[in-house]
């Protein structure tokens, strides 16, 4: 497939996404809410928010290396949306949340998020911390863990293995952690060490789970639809590839087996 064809497909994909988003939003407005799938990692956020309010301790929200203006702009925007809803939930706390970032261009985004989510903007200028460099960022965050004693850390952004330093430090101090990274090494560390973990595209859906905002929930639905389509596509491609290597396989056989499986499935379903 040449580059032009690819680009045309990409544009069509974007249009289809926009169409889906409008459709999902339409149904959201009409009140037809689709039950969202369960995101285990989101369950603790309410608990941590309450702790932040009751114990007068801030939440720490980490953007990591996601920068506005580069290829991670969308990740930074999705994080900001997610953090907006978390901050809104914790706004009753006497201590405003801290947002940390390793990218200078994300500082205004963090300040804007705090300003919008907190009553009268809070102290948004001094609650966004910028620490450039990956390990330097991790080290500075551990210092914050000691000095500000956050109730919990939501480390949802772009991290590498340095995530281990932060989660380990939080763990030793009894501070909860939810982690997610768009990078493979960071994601592995998050899975192994964090109290709660989100995976890949769940970052983009998280805002829909942390709020009842119709737009955010519609976006989560669009993501689910695309995800299902991609999984189906991969599955079909896999089946076709397997079928290619089995010369004895033919449509009659496939249909027969499918029919048998369908009947069995229906029987089991009815028994339950």
């Amino acid at each position: 497939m040449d580059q032009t064809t690819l680009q045309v497909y990409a544009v069509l994909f974007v249009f289809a996404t926009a169409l889906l988003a409008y459709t999902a939003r339409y149904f959201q407005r009409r009140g037809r809410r689709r039950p969202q799938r369960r995101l285990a990692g989101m369950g603790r956020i309410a608990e941590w928010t309450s702790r932040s309010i009751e114990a007068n301790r801030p939440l720490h929200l980490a953007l990591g290396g996601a920068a506005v203006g580069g290829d991670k702009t969308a990740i930074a925007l999705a994080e900001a949306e997610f953090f907006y809803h978390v901050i809104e939930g914790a706004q009753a706390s006497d201590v405003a949340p801290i947002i940390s970032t390793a990218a200078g261009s994300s500082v205004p985004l963090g300040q804007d998020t705090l300003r919008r989510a907190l009553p009268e903007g809070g102290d948004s200028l001094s609650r966004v911390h910028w620490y450039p460099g990956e390990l330097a960022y991790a080290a500075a965050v551990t210092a914050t863990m000691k000095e500000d004693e956050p109730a919990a850390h939501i480390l949802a952004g772009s991290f590498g293995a340095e995530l281990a330093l932060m989660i380990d430090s939080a763990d030793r101090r009894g501070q909860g952690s939810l982690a997610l990274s768009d990078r493979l090494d960071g994601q592995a560390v998050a899975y192994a060490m964090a109290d709660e973990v989100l995976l890949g595209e769940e970052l983009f859906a998280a805002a829909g789970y942390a709020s009842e905002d119709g737009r955010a929930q519609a976006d989560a639905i669009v993501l689910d639809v695309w995800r299902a389509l991609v999984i189906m596509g991969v599955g079909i491609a896999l089946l076709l590839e397997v079928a290619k290597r089995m010369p004895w396989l033919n449509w009659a056989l496939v249909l027969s087996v499918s029919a048998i499986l369908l009947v069995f499935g229906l029987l089991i379903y009815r028994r339950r």
Partner: protein
Amino acid sequence: MGRGQRYGIALSAFVAFAVGVVTALSLLLGDNPALFGEQPGSAQLAGLLALPADVLLRLATIVVALSIVIGIANLLTVHVGRLARGKAYSAVMLASFGFTVFWYVARQGDTSLLEAVQVPIESALAALLCLSLLHGGSRVLGKRADIWGLLFVAVVVLVLLGSLPLAELAPVQAWRDWLMRVPVGAGARALLLGIALGTVVTGVRALLGQDRSFRG
């Protein structure tokens, strides 16, 4: 919300939408002169269409480059404030900042502090990172006592064993290579696919002026 504010929001949403669409179209058409066929002047036309994207992306690059100034201003503001509240680490940070600037100016651009201070400190941090990773790896089943946790530990051990340069472990090295090539490759692609889908959805939201920044 006042009328002026509403107009402001509408204007910013429109600007975002217009810039996004212009950039996307310019990239699509400008990068593909083949779309205009073989007629004379098609290359020039493509070049002309590519211009808006070039200009806008260059502007974005300049803004991003300037963001380091925002970062430094933020760093100083935040830590001066924290120093006033008695935070010790902020004092260390400000002192280091001042000393580095002084050193660079006084020594006329000498960057030896980078090698003498930052590289050793970051290397030490990387070593500490190993210890943290080790601790995390040793208690995976404490955090996630399920089949997936067990699988995770098994893979970690297998990969580590496979990386040992011991001739006796040659079969394990073959397994490790397979693991890294097939399941890890598949996992990485799945993760990237998910991120890409999310990026498109968020991008569309921003393009349509639905992002919170445009909502006032």
